[in-house]
Structure formats: structure tokens, C-alpha cells
């Protein structure tokens, strides 16, 4: 129960951060990716700002035996860079550059009254489902 509340609070905080930094705006994201146009550095500041507290939290977590509300840390231990990782990331990046949406901003952006994120999120779920279907084969 307390972990579910933490999840809701952190999800809300994450969504607020995406809105404050204007990452919910696909035009802002595309302007960062547009190296040959009117380049907008905002996304780099957002990434930099996000990495600072998370890096500190990670260093703290390494000194803790367990998180505050749970019995263990669930941190991925796989360190092998394989073809699947790179292909998946390239496919994701292509879709990201195409419309300027990645999963978080698209979902956070559902509340601004425009229809585009609804279409994007529906297609994204279809893509996830397609991956599950094809990886089971």
C-alpha cells in the first residue's frame, strides 16, 4: 500500500517535471533533435537536471541494504550490450524523432485537450503488444 502511494506520488512528480520543462510539447523535443534547424537545447538541460538527483540516489542506494519500504533493490544487473538492445533503441529513436513523443510525455500529455497523444499512445500500446506477439514466436 505504501509503495503504491510512493508510485502515485513519484509518477505525479515526474509528470509535473515533464510539464514544467515543456517536454510534453513534441515541438520542443523535435527542436532539440533538429541539429540543422533552429536548435533548442532545453532537452539537454532537462536530462542534466534529472541525472543529478538520480546519480546521488544511486550512490546512496549502494550503501543501503534495502530501500525504505521494500526488502530489496531491483536494479538491472545485465551489463551486456547486445544487438537486440541496439536495434530496439534505434527503432525507438526513429519513432521518437518522427513525432517528438516518447512514452512519458505522450501519457502526461493526454490532459491538454489535443487528440494527437491519444492516437500516439494507442499506437504505442499496439507496438508493445506486437513485440510481445513476435517475441513469443
Amino acid at each position, binding site marked *: 500500500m505504501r509503495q503504491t502511494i*510512493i508510485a502515485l506520488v513519484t509518477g505525479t512528480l515526474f509528470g509535473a517535471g515533464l510539464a514544467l520543462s515543456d517536454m510534453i510539447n513534441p515541438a520542443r523535443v523535435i527542436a532539440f*533533435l533538429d541539429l540543422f534547424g533552429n536548435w533548442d537545447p532545453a532537452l539537454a538541460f532537462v536530462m542534466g537536471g534529472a541525472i543529478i538527483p538520480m546519480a546521488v540516489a544511486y550512490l546512496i542506494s549502494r550503501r543501503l541494504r534495502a530501500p525504505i519500504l521494500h526488502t530489496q533493490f531491483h536494479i538491472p544487473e545485465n551489463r551486456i550490450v547486445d544487438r537486440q538492445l541496439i536495434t530496439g533503441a534505434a527503432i525507438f529513436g526513429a519513432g521518437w524523432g518522427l513525432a517528438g513523443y516518447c512514452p512519458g510525455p505522450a501519457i502526461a500529455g493526454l490532459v491538454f485537450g489535443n487528440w494527437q497523444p491519444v492516437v500516439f499512445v494507442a499506437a504505442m500500446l499496439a*507496438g*508493445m*503488444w506486437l513485440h510481445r506477439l513476435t517475441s513469443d514466436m
Partner: protein
Amino acid sequence: MSTLAPLDPLTALAGGLLIGLSAAVLLLFSGRIAGISGMVARAVGIADSGTPRLQALAFVVGLPIGAWLLSASLRQPEVIVTSSIPILVTAGVLVGFGTRMGNGCTSGHGVCGVSRLSPRSLAATATFMFAGFAIVALARFMVGG
């Protein structure tokens, strides 16, 4: 068509700090990585393992709540989306498929993984950034913008 107003770098940095704080609290309290593509897949039942389903759902539901609260209180965003339906659908399918295949997106790899210098996340982030730059450049030169 409206044009994009510049964003104050300090505002972008502050938004980033909120995102990082969110990921930090989730890690230190629940021991979980704030990877949104994974949480979404888990919340809708596409992924079978990872964050418990109710927690994943709570996190995902929090995203629009937080975005709405912030824009209602601080700054109403001027959201500009120029993509057509076929582009949105193609982009969505690619993002959904690619994030599952590559085990993460801008949050799980880009923020959380880079913060702990995970080799997989550093490689994934470099790759999706490069792909994003390449697609936007390609679109620019094909449309002739």
C-alpha cells in the same frame, strides 16, 4: 502555425530536477527504476515481470495528474503537434515496439541508466539519440524545410 517560444534554461533544469527527484524517491523508497515504457507495459498487462502491476498503474496514472497540476498552477503549455495521423501511428508503433525490444526509453535508460553509468543504458541512449537526430535531419532534407 504558431512558433515555439524559447524556454528559459533554468526552467528546463528545474523540470529535470523534478524528474530526477521522482526517480530518486522511487529508487530509495521502493527500490524500483522509474522506467516508463516498462511501467506502461506492466500496467496494461503486456509485461509479466517488473514493478508490481498496481504500483506501475499508480505511477502511470500519476504522469497526467502531475502534468495537469503543474500547468493549471504554474504555466499553461502551448503544445504544438504538427504530425498527421499516419505519422503518429507509425511513430507510436515504433516507440512501443522499440522500447520493449531495447528494454527501456528516455526515462529508464536516458535518466536512470545514465545516472548509474550502466553500459547498456549508455549504449541505448547514444543509439536512440543518434536515431532521433538522424530521422529529424532526414525529414528536414526530404521535405526541404
